[in-house]
C-alpha cells in the first residue's frame, strides 16, 4: 500500500474531522469538471501566504483543482517539504533527494529559482489533518482502482457520515466494478448508521453491509445508533446472524484447508515408512534420517548448481528430487545389506538396530555439515501465496499437497503396475513361494527397502521448503510417521493416505479450542486409544496375511 492510501485510511479512521470532510465533499462535488488552470494557480497562491487559515483553504482549493501531482504536493506539505520563493511566489516541492520541482507543473525547478532563498510552508496539527483529508480525497480519485477501493474500504470502516457526499460523488464517476462495489458498501455503511436516513433505505443498506460479511461489517451492525426503528434493528440482527453463520463456515473451510496441508506433510513423511514398515514389516527407526538425508541432498544440489550451472538455478529443486531419491535410496540399500537383512523376523531387534543407525547418521551429518541449520532456497515459482475458498495459502504449501499426492500415485502405480511391484508384493506375501518361482528375494528385499528410503528422501526435498534443514530434521517426523502408518493400517497405502489426511485435519480442527500443543497431545492420546480399540489400524488386512 502506498503512503497516501495509508494516510487516507488513518484519516478516515480518525472520525474527528467531520468538518474537514464536509469541506472536502463539497470540493469534490464541484469537481466533476476538468481542472482549470486558474483554480490551481489560486490554490497554490494560498500556500505562499504562509498563514494557517490560508494554507487550509489552499488545500481545499488544491483538492478541488485536482492536478495530477496533487497527491505529491500534499505529501510534500505534510512532511514539511513544500517551499515557496517569496519574491515570485513560486511554490516548489523539495524531494527527498534534495532536488526541487515546480508544484505548478511538476517540472524540475530552474537553477535560478533554486538559487534564491526559499521559505518552507509551515504546518501545524490542523494543517496535517487537512493534508490527510486531502490525501484521502485524492485516493478516492486515484487512477489505480485498487487504491480507490482501499480508500472506500477505509470509509466503510469509519462510517463517517460527513464523507457521504464525497463517496456519492466518487460513486457517480466510478467505472471500475471492484472499486464501485467498495464504494457502495462504504455508502451503505454510512447510511446504516445515519439516524435520519429513510427507513427503507437503511434496511437496504443493512443488507448491503451484511453482504460484505467481514469483521468490520459485524462491528457496524452491532453498533447501530440508539433509537433506530425496530425494522432496522431486526434487519441488522438478521444480518449479524447471517454474517456469523458465514464466518463459522469460512473458519471451518480454513481449518480444513490447513488440515489438508498438514496432512499432506504427514503423508509425505510417512509414505516411505508405509513401504519399509507397512509393506516389508521392518521397524525402521532411521526413517526420519532418510528424510533428513533427502533434505541435505537438496541443499547440496542447490549449492552445486548455483556454483557450476547458475542457468539452472530455478530448476534446482526439481533436479534435487531424483538426486535425493538416489542418495537416500543408496543409503537405504546399504543399511538393508549390512544390518537389516540379518534381523528379518525379529522386529524388536530391528527397532533397536535401526535406532542405532539413525544416531550414527545424525552424527555423521552433524560432523559433515555442522550442527546449525542449512538454508535451502525457495525458487521464485514457489514464492507468494494465493487464496483458496477465502483462505490464503502459500504456494509451497500447495505444491506440497500436490507433490504428496503425486508421490502417492506414483508409488501405487509402481506397486500395482510394474513387474518390480509384482515381485515386491509376491515376496512380502509369501517369501518361499516367491523364491520358488525364481524371484531373487534378497535382491527384492534390498530394492524395496531402497525404494522406501528413496521415497523418504524425496519427502526430504519437499520438507526442506517448510522446515529447518538440520541434523535433527528427521526426529521430528518419526513418531508422527509411525502413528500415521499404524493408524491407517499396516500394509495398506490407502490407509496411510486416509490416516495422514485425517490426522492432519483433526489436528487443525482441534487447534482453535485447545491450542497447538494441547491439541497435539489430545490427538496423540486419541490415536493411542484408537490403536487400543483397533490394534490393526483403520484398514486392517484380513485373513492369513495378518498372522504371517
Amino acid at each position, binding site marked *: 500500500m502506498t503512503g497516501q492510501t495509508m494516510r487516507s485510511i488513518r484519516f478516515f479512521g480518525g472520525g474527528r474531522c467531520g468538518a474537514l470532510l464536509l469541506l472536502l465533499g463539497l470540493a469534490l462535488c464541484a469537481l466533476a469538471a476538468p481542472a482549470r488552470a486558474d483554480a490551481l494557480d489560486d490554490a497554490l497562491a494560498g500556500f505562499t501566504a504562509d498563514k494557517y487559515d490560508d494554507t487550509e483553504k489552499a488545500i481545499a482549493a488544491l483538492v478541488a483543482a485536482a492536478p495530477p501531482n496533487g497527491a505529491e504536493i500534499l505529501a510534500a506539505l505534510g512532511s514539511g517539504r513544500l517551499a515557496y520563493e517569496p519574491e515570485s511566489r513560486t511554490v516548489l516541492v523539495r524531494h527527498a533527494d534534495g532536488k526541487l520541482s515546480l508544484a505548478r507543473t511538476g517540472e524540475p525547478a530552474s537553477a535560478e529559482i533554486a538559487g534564491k532563498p526559499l521559505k518552507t510552508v509551515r504546518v501545524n496539527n490542523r494543517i496535517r489533518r487537512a493534508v490527510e483529508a486531502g490525501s484521502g480525497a485524492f485516493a478516492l480519485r486515484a487512477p489505480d482502482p485498487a487504491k480507490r477501493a482501499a480508500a472506500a474500504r477505509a470509509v466503510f470502516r469509519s462510517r463517517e457520515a460527513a464523507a457521504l457526499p464525497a463517496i456519492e460523488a466518487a460513486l457517480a464517476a466510478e467505472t471500475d466494478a471492484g472499486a464501485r462495489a467498495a464504494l457502495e458498501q462504504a455508502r451503505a455503511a454510512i447510511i446504516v448508521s445515519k439516524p435520519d436516513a429513510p427507513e427503507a433505505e437503511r434496511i437496504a443498506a443493512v443488507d448491503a453491509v451484511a453482504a460484505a460479511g467481514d469483521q468490520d461489517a459485524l462491528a457496524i451492525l452491532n453498533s447501530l445508533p440508539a433509537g433506530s426503528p425496530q425494522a432496522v434493528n431486526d434487519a441488522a440482527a438478521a444480518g449479524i446472524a447471517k454474517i456469523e453463520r458465514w464466518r463459522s463456515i469460512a473458519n471451518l473451510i480454513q481449518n480444513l484447508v490447513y488440515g489438508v496441508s498438514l496432512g499432506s506433510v504427514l503423508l509425505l513423511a510417512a509414505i516411505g515408512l508405509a513401504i519399509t514398515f507397512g509393506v516389508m514389516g521392518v*521397524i525402521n*527407526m532411521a526413517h526420519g534420517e532418510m528424510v533428513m538425508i533427502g533434505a541435505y541432498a537438496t541443499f547440496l544440489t542447490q549449492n552445486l548448481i548455483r556454483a557450476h550451472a547458475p542457468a539452472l538455478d530455478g530448476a534446482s529443486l526439481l533436479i534435487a528430487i531424483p538426486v535425493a531419491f538416489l542418495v537416500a535410496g543408496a543409503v537405504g540399500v546399504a543399511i538393508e545389506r549390512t*544390518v537389516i537383512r*540379518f*534381523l528379518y*523376523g*525379529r*522386529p*524388536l*531387534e*530391528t*527397532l*533397536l*538396530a535401526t*535406532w*542405532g*543407525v*539413525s*544416531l*550414527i*547418521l*545424525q*552424527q*555423521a551429518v*552433524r*560432523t559433515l555439515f555442522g550442527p546449525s541449520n542449512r538454508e535451502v532456497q525457495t525458487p521464485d515459482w514457489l514464492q507468494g501465496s494465493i487464496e483458496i475458498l477465502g483462505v490464503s495459502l502459500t504456494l509451497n504449501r500447495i505444491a506440497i499437497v500436490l507433490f504428496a499426492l503425486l508421490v502417492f500415485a506414483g508409488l501405487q502405480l509402481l506397486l500395482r503396475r510394474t513387474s518390480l511391484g509384482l515381485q515386491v508384493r509376491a515376496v512380502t506375501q509369501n517369501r518361499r513361494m516367491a523364491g520358488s518361482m525364481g524371484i531373487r528375494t534378497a535382491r527384492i528385499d534390498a530394492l524395496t527397502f531402497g525404494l522406501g528410503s528413496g521415497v523418504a528422501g524425496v519427502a526430504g526435498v519437499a520438507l526442506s521448503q517448510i522446515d529447518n534443514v538440520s541434523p535433527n530434521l528427521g*526426529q521430528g517426523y518419526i*513418531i508422527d510417521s*509411525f*502413528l500415521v502408518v*499404524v493408524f491407517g493400517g499396516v500394509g495398506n497405502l490407502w490407509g496411510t493416505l486416509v490416516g495422514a489426511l485425517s490426522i492432519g485435519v483433526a489436528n487443525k480442527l482441534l487447534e482453535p479450542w485447545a491450542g497447538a*500443543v*494441547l491439541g*497435539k*497431545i489430545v490427538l*496423540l*492420546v486419541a*490415536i*493411542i*486409544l484408537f*490403536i*487400543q*480399540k483397533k*490394534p490393526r489400524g483403520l484398514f486392517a488386512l484380513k485373513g492369513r496375511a*495378518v*498372522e504371517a
Partner: protein
Amino acid sequence: MSRYRFLDAAGLIFLGVVLAMAVLVPASNLLLPPDSALHVSDYLVPLLGKYLAFAMLALALDLVWGYCGILSLGHGAFFALGGYAMGMYLMRQIGPRGVYGNPVLPDFMVFLNWQELPWFWLGFDQFWFAALMAILVPGALAFCFGWFAFRSRVTGVYLSIITQAMTFALMLAFFRNDMGFGGNNGLTDFKEILGFSVQAPETRAALFAATAVALALSYLLCRWVVTSKLGKVVVAVRDAESRTRFIGYRVENYKLLVFTLSAMLAGVAGALYVPQVGIINPSEFAPANSIEAVIWVAVGGRGTLLGAALGAFLVNAGKTWFTGVLPDLWLFALGGLFVATTLLIPKGVVGAVTDLLGVRRKSELPAAQSIVAAAKSPAE
C-alpha cells in the same frame, strides 16, 4: 523346565558388590583424606549414584522386556514422573528461600503470577506423600495404559510405538507452562531434603547409600517375581502368548501386573535420581531417553536382571567418558552399540560371557532363540 533358584551365585555376588558400594563409597568419600588414592571425590559420588538409579530403571525395564516380552519405549516417562514427584517435594522445601521469597509458591509460579498453589501440588510438602506419589503416579499411569493396551491385545512393535507416543505426549504436556510443573525449565534449585542440604557431601553420600540399598532391594523383588510361579507364567507369555492363553491363563492380567510393578520401580528410580542430579525437566520424557534405557538392558543381557543393571552401569560410564574426552564420537559409539549388540551379541554381555565359559546354568534364560520365537509367533 526346572525351578529357578531364588538367589544363585551370580545374584549373590551382585548383591554383595552393590551393598559393599553402599558402604564403601560414602565411607571413602567422607572419611579418607582427598589426596588418598582410594578417595572417591565429591564429583564422583552423585555420578555413581546416578548410575545406580539408571541401573534400577534398567532392572524395571528388564522385568517387562526380558521376562514378559513387552518392549516398552516409554519407561523414561515412569522414571520422569517419579522424578517429578520428588522434585515437587524438593521445590516445596525451598520455602521462602526462593528468589521471590514466597513461602508457599515455587518461584516459577510467582513468575507466572499465580496466586495460589494448584491442587495437585498439595501435600507435596510432606516427604512421605511425595514418596508415595513417586510410586503411585507411575503405577497408576502404567495400570491405565496397560489395562487398555493388554485387554485389546496390542502387542509387539505396536505396543512399543504407542508407549513411545505416550512419553512423547507427556513431554509435550510438561513443556507447557500452564501445566504447573515449571514448563521448559522444570524443577531445580533445590535446597534441602528432609532438612539436610542437598549440596552437602554427607547428604549426597546418604543418598548414594539409599540408592544402592534400593537397587539391591529392587533386585531381590524382581528376582522373587521371576523365580515365583507368577514368573513362570510371565515367561510363558513372552515365549508363546497364544498358547498360554489357550491353556487358560488370563494373559492380560499377568502382563498388567508386571508392567505396573515395573513402572513403580522406574518411578522409585526417578525419585532417587532427582535429588542427586539436582534437576528434573521435561526432556527426561524424551523418547530417545527411553530407547537409550532399552539399550542398557540389551547390552547387559536381557532376561538376566543383573545383566541389565550391569549394562546401565557400563553404557553410562562409557557415555561419561566419551562426552568428556571425545564428545563428537559419543553418538557414533552409542549408535554402533545398538547395531553391534543386536547383530553380534543378542544375549548381551552376560549372555556372551556365560556362553564363553561354557556354563549353562539352569537359572539363566533358556536362550535368545526363545525370544526370537516369541517375536515370530502369531500375535493373536
